[in-house]
């Protein structure tokens, strides 16, 4: 039996997060200023917390300075993940069409170079009702669609790559304040990384789920083993009497390495708060390792770099 790992009073479970392959893309949204780029990106990534019912999982990856974008304006990188390339293409087109094309001064570009191409402005151009024009610049085709503030510029396609979805951390704390503080610190640390998003509101989900339900029509239901309100009621609980609140952070990333690194820095942020701050345990959700090919073992992630 291995000795329990305890860091700053926080017990680290000897378990792993189980993640799945997803289709992913990155787009770059620019605008006259960062506020308008953020309006567009926020709208385009709205209602995109889980593929269970949203069609895709999406979030803002990071801000881009003016000298990092194709048109020299400030912008944001947005990542979108879905279970199939076809669904991803559908979600991308709807979201860019309704939330970016409509937003004042915006333009949209591909954020990935390599991978299967899916339409970005390719079909949205028809909004131009025949007045749209294309331009190939340095081998890349852009569409210019006349709109009321001038023109909407969109790169014709973006690329789809294989991503990793469902990396997660469960933060088990003594009360709501402590759980939120640990989750917020972990999300803040993860957001400094590239190639990952935390798609739930504020990056945190309180309704962690298990696969299946007593109701046959539901594909997922509450993760009763981690519900403090069900301690003593359910046949198997993961909690003890000290734990009164659990928060989960779900991580989607462009690569396995990016997800693992996000989990690592998230755990370190929680450990820094420590048991004195109310964080008692860190765990992770999995399905026994039989469903997802990516396993992120918490102890391995916290091991010294050479030992991982």
């Amino acid at each position: 039996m291995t000795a329990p790992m305890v860091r700053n009073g926080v017990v680290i479970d000897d378990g792993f997060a189980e993640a799945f392959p997803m289709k992913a893309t990155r787009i770059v949204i620019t605008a006259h200023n960062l506020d308008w780029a953020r309006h567009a990106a926020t709208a385009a990534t709205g209602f995109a917390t889980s593929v269970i019912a949203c069609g895709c999982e999406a979030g803002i990856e990071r801000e881009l300075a003016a000298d990092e974008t194709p048109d020299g304006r400030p912008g944001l990188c947005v990542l979108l993940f879905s279970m199939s390339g076809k669904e991803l293409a559908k979600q991308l087109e709807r979201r860019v069409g309704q939330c970016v094309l409509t937003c004042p001064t915006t333009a949209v570009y591909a954020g990935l170079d390599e991978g299967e191409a899916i339409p970005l402005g390719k079909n949205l151009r028809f909004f131009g009702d025949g007045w749209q024009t294309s331009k190939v610049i340095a081998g890349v085709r852009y569409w210019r669609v006349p709109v009321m503030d001038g023109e909407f510029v969109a790169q014709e396609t973006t690329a789809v790559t294989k991503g990793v979805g469902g990396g997660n951390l469960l933060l088990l704390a003594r009360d709501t304040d402590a759980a939120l503080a640990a989750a917020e610190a972990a999300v803040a640390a993860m957001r400094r990384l590239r190639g990952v998003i935390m798609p739930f509101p504020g990056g945190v989900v309180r309704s962690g789920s298990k696969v299946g339900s007593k109701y046959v029509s539901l594909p997922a239901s509450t993760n009763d083993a981690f519900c403090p309100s069900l301690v003593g009621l359910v046949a198997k609980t993961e909690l003890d009497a000290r734990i009164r609140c659990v928060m989960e952070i779900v991580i989607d990333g462009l690569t396995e390495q990016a997800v693992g690194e996000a989990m690592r820095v998230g755990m370190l942020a929680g450990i820094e708060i420590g048991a004195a701050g109310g964080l008692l345990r860190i765990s992770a959700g999995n399905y026994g390792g039989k469903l997802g090919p990516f396993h992120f073992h918490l102890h391995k992630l916290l091991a010294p770099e050479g030992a991982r």
Partner: protein
Amino acid sequence: MSRTRLMLKQRHGLRIDLRGITPTVCAGLGVAQIERLQVSQGNRALALAELFAVSREDGEADELRLEGDLSSCDRVGWQMDGGLLVAEGSVGDHAGGCMRAGELQVHGDAGLLAACEMAGGLLTVQGDVGDFAASTLPGSMDGMRGGSLVVRGHAGARFADRMRRGTAVVFGDVGDFVASRMVAGTVAIGGMAGAHPAYGMRRGTLVFAGRGPDVSPTFVPALASAEVFWQLLSRDLARHGGPFAGLPARRIQRHLGDLGVDGKGELIVVT
């Protein structure tokens, strides 16, 4: 990889047609085979060795170098599909015509119809080009349809006539009817233009980085900003340097037309 050198033995009165002499063709052949390649001079077919001295050396890419007075050599780089072709001096007509890929460098002037119906690759002319560069072959409907043409000198009349795709850049002046009947693509002029620029232009972009032309009354001034598009285009043009180097920082006036035809083209004057 190899470098093939063709040295023209002497200047000829009759035109020499070099179609078929491309870097990819020569790269796959030995010197003796290259010497037996057929070229035409006037109405005669000759072995290449009767006109050129052929030599071969190791190189980093499939490279073909033409040396000597090449002004009587037409169709240099005709239908070229890869590799690097360097002409060490001025060449005749149809240089880079119908080329699809690779790079053609002309260290001098090019004659009529340079880059006509060019579909890909890069053609750089250090000197001037004659009339109908980047345009159509006589009787054809589409002109240049891809790739990049960079002329560091001046260009003649009907530059980019019926051009459909690609980028054609002239550092100096152009003659009359530049971008006439243009279907699409990008033309950028560093100097001045002759009469009737963009006559019958359907779509595409004609940029004047130097002095703006007299704009035809069949063009209307654009009221809306196209700053995003301009930043994308001007940053790409700026890499050519010369009169285009500072374009992203400069402001523009746009004119839309030609209303006599489709009217979706734009004439951009840098102020």
